[in-house]
């Protein structure tokens, strides 16, 4: 086995040994589906409102997982690797530490995909949530959203001096994102100004575009453009700013 694939394999083992990872993949999306299931079944909403919720909840659970992985788990892991000299140790070997970063990225993306599949499958069969109607739009949105959010996470990992700083920067981006992005409250219940700001955040754009594709519409160009722009800008920034020691 080559060094790179061995590295990815070992990093995957380490990821699975960490209980928080398993929580983000399995427990968090299912908990969110469960909670909203309880809320909606016991409410006296109209059938239309219930249908809207059935499309909102899985899109929200999916964006939540993407955001937690990209803004919390990934930057903290990478900053810890730098802080403890793990990247530097690798720089002293024939395998450049950029391979470690790529392995982490692959693992976190794969985790996001597994979480998404769980949301679709468990949601559909256990909680009666809807499936996306516009499949190509859904796939495109998921890919762009993951690119944008993970790029932001890499910038956090690049600029954070240590693991604690990475965690706090990640969280200080996370909570406003949840608020402006329409996770705590669906966008249509937010004040206009807040919803407008949310359109320009990676989480907000991801969630709205996912919801559109769920409801069978092509997402707004604005949301896809925001995701592409954030992805491109932050990828370049992260590549420029990242320090290996």
């Amino acid at each position, binding site marked *: 086995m080559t060094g790179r694939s061995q590295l990815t394999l*070992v990093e995957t083992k380490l990821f699975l040994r960490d209980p928080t990872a398993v929580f983000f993949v399995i427990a968090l999306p299912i908990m969110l589906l469960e909670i909203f299931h309880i809320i909606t079944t016991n409410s006296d909403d109209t059938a239309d409102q219930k249908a809207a919720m059935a499309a909102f909840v899985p899109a929200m659970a999916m964006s939540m997982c993407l955001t937690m992985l990209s803004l919390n788990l990934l930057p903290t892991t990478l900053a810890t690797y730098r802080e403890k*000299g*793990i990247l530097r140790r690798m720089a*002293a*070997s*024939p*395998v450049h530490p950029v391979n470690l970063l790529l392995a982490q990225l692959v693992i976190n993306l794969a985790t996001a995909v597994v979480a998404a599949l769980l949301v679709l499958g468990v949601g559909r069969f256990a909680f009666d949530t809807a499936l996306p109607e516009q499949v190509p739009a859904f796939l495109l949105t998921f890919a762009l959203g993951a690119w944008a959010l993970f790029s932001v996470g890499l910038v956090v990992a690049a600029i954070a001096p240590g693991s604690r700083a990475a965690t706090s920067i990640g969280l200080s981006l996370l909570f406003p994102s949840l608020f402006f992005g329409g996770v705590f409250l669906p966008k249509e219940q937010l004040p206009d100004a807040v919803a407008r700001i949310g359109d320009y955040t990676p989480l907000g754009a991801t969630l709205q575009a996912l919801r559109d594709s769920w409801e069978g519409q092509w997402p707004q160009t604005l949301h896809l453009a925001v995701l592409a722009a954030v992805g491109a800008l932050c990828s370049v920034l992260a590549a420029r700013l990242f320090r290996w020691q």
Partner: protein
Amino acid sequence: MEEEREGMPVIEVEKLRKTYGDHVAVDDVSFAVEEGEIFGILGPNGAGKTTIVECVEGLRRYDGGKVSVMGLDPHHDKEQLRQRIGIQLQESELPPRLKVWEALQMYSTFYRDPADWRSLITDWGLEKKRDSRFGQLSGGQKQRLSIALALVGNPRIAVFDELTTALDPRARRETWELIERVRAQGVTVLLVTHFMEEAERLCDRIAVIRDGQLAALDTPAGLIAAAESEQRLRFTPSVPLDDSLLTALPEVTSVTRANARVTVTGTENLVYAVVSVLSRHGIVPGELRLEQPTLEDAFVKLTGTAPAAN
């Protein structure tokens, strides 16, 4: 393909210079390390030792001079060099959940011609810790793992930076034996340290670094001889003693006291002169000790700083 012969330099550093902004960290340092040597880089903390070896390893760019390692340029031929140099870094860890065998097995796949990682586990006494996570290892075990990792690529040169700093004296002595074993296998060792005892015990030759400059380069015995330190006599007088009794002697250069103990330094005939004057006054010098100059004295003289407590 290997053209190096016994005694040929495997590392050549010429007029190395490295600055950080206005601060000159390394200035005009030159030395050559021969194949099979344990070559020490000794100096007080902050003298620039680590910067020098990082330039040799290709982990740091330098601003001036020339470095050649087995005929390779550490920067342009980084990939080739990485295959043939084993590096143990100061303050570098592994992921806490990574197991000992996984670390060695994974790093062995990074090299074209790796050592057998299973025998490294045995050689470095890690069998019982084979399945332990890095985070559960003691300081000494971590250190042995980091040496084993430095050797997993079958290197021709191994660089150890402050290998024993975090260890207790017993673990330190054990590590010294391990380093001698590495050399016995034909690996050239570059050893960064600020411990005199370590340098004196292990190194064939030592480069003493002071303020980023090469203060001296010689064998441990050569450094001691060149420093020409004075003789030193220590004793506890049987009755209180007036310093002037001793300072009046032409052979004596200084008299100091710590509690009841008197330390006299001076020239060649110090012992005879001091003992005679004491006996003339009926004073018995208890626990009399004559100290020869050590590497530590040479170090203090060369660098103007006291060495680290051992």
